[in-house]
């Protein structure tokens, strides 16, 4: 394609910093340029450029055959994405808010996730959209949806925490031959602290690989998404205490990078899982049992977790702040474990 790249999508080319949101836009854009099988569907993604403007300028660049404003029908357009994938296209579907993925639950779990196993072929597609709390969005604009799908074999789930990873992971997700649910935390979209200069050349971050954010000898925090930054903040607070905290960012939740977790816990002997999602049925449970299976002998303390409360996401700031895990919670949990 010979279109002129929109000004705001040339930041990396100009050597400028980008936000996590801009990193996703660039990743999407580059994949659409390099592979004409890739196309976008979602509500208000064309003229408006998406509720959060991730696809701003895409309609002008690629036209309305590849940037499709859909009716408000999450089940319908996700099902249509499945059909397009059967025909060799690589759809990328946007949920305006991931809270509204629920009408697509049927087609995602019963049809898309089972396709390969049923002999109906692979399902290369990405379902992406904003998740997460802290924005006073209330119960329907704040949820983390990973665990509603974590139990479904056949799906992959990705949840980046940095601009670099977001771009590399969205590109890898689009190139992946499996259906990938891609979660984008609203609070990270434009966070000034996350701005960074990205490599000018094409790169991906492979799915299924965790990243060690901080190295430490005394305790392992396994986390992802916005909680990576709260965990790092906690670890910095604890430097004065002489507690060496290792922070692992899962990046991909499904499949889980079990080796990275187990390897770290074997070194530190202590595990804290931190997730913004609610407690019961959160990923901490799965991680703990895997560590128990493979590294029980190395543990010096019980495995613990810091999570949101088991409740819908409340609207008011005071309730939401209490509902969400905070840096202070991580600090207290680490101190408790370190002293155990």
């Amino acid at each position, binding site marked *: 394609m010979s279109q002129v790249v929109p000004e705001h999508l040339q930041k990396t080319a100009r050597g400028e910093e980008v936000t996590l949101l801009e990193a996703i836009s660039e990743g999407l854009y580059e994949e659409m340029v390099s592979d004409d099988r890739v196309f976008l569907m979602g509500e208000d993604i064309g003229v408006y450029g998406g509720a959060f403007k991730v696809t701003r300028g895409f309609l002008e660049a690629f036209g309305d055959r590849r940037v499709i404003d859909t*009716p408000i029908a999450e089940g319908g357009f996700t099902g249509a994405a499945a059909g397009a994938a059967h025909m060799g296209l690589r759809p990328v579907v946007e949920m305006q808010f991931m809270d509204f993925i629920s009408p697509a639950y049927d087609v995602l779990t019963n049809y898309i996730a089972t396709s390969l196993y049923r002999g109906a072929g692979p399902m290369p597609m990405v379902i992406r959209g904003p998740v997460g709390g802290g924005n006073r969005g209330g*119960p329907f604009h704040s949820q983390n949806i990973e665990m509603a799908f974590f139990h479904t074999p056949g799906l992959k789930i990705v949840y980046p925490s940095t601009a670099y990873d977001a771009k590399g992971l969205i590109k890898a997700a689009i190139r992946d031959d499996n259906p990938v649910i891609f979660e984008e935390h609203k609070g990270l979209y434009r966070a000034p602290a996350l701005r960074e200069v990205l490599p000018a050349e094409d790169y991906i971050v492979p799915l299924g690989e965790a990243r060690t954010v901080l190295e430490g000898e005394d305790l392992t925090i396994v986390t992802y998404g916005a909680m990576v930054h709260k965990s790092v903040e906690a670890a910095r607070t604890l430097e004065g205490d002489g507690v060496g905290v290792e922070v692992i960012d899962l990046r991909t939740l499904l499949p889980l990078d079990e080796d990275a977790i187990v390897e770290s816990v074997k070194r530190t002997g202590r595990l804290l899982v931190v997730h913004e999602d609610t407690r019961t049925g959160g990923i901490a449970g799965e991680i703990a049992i895997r560590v128990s299976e493979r590294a029980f002998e190395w543990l010096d303390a019980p495995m613990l977790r810091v999570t949101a*409360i088991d409740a819908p996401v409340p*609207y*008011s700031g*005071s*309730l939401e702040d209490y509902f969400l895990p905070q840096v202070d919670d991580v600090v207290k949990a680490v101190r408790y474990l370190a002293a155990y």
Partner: protein
Amino acid sequence: MAENLSPGLDRDQLLELYRALCLTRAAEERLELLQKQGHMTGGLYRSLGQEAGAVGAAFALRRRTDGTGDFLAPTVRAVGALFLFGGDLVDFFRQYMARATGPTKGREANVHWVDYQKGFVGPVSPLGTMLEVMAGITLSFNLRGEDRVGMVFYGDGASSTGAWHEGLNFAAVQRCPLILMVEANQWAFSSPTVKNTRLESFTEKAPGYGIAAESVDGTDVLAVYEAVARAAARARSGEGAQMVELRYFRRLGHAQHDSQDYVDPALIAEWAARDPLELFHTRMLDRGWAPEGELLAIRQEVEQECEVAAEQAIAEPMPFGPDAVDDVYTDVSMPHPWTRAEISDSRSA
């Protein structure tokens, strides 16, 4: 004996309609002020230009406070209907400012609250759901042999959801006394209606469900009232589900954060000239139903009411954070985070 002036309404009723239109306008304008002052918690939605659709429709139903009247499921743009059903003005401001004293104790936003005695259930954000829920509420009227009807509002965009179809078809098949108000404001966020349907009018969908439908000028409060009164009579007489389409225009952005630069300003101007409140104001004067002084006094009165209500809500407390663990179940509280030792010193994680 009150004299019948217009579609079977007496002077007091006409003034009540006028008042409800003014109240809707004033309450939403007060929200804008509250937002500028930094009191609001989340998004702000306006129904500018759509007030008559909500007010005229709700006025055609039996509004009671003892749990025996008709039943409403509004949208955020049908706030005028909520007020007519007895939705409290202070509660409205409490909801938008997430106060502990509000009907949802700060857990939910704007018109998302319920009062089963007054007969309304607020929506959830996922579009379409309330059509299913209202099918069940009106089914219960049938099952118990109660002479009640339900009314559910949804935007034109919401008609694309599976829930909209499933709920409407269920209500049609079961002959539920449910009136679906289609708020055809020509937009769904940035998407013009043509991206949600190929039809000119939503009434064309009605035959597909085997139900009756009317389309009405949604800026004309009396026309809306008449159309809904007819629909309610049909629903009550056993004909079951009904559709009424309100034709009008969303004159402001989807929410306050949306400048709607994707809308032709000429269109907005065209519809601004058909302001439902001003239209009714002129009609009241032209027909000699009320002198101007009386109408202006009503406007001042509701503005005053809004100011008093907003000030009251502002002065009230925010929720206490730890209350977030309550009401998840009827009988058990969720554990507090074990790291909040001041709340609970037992490690419950």
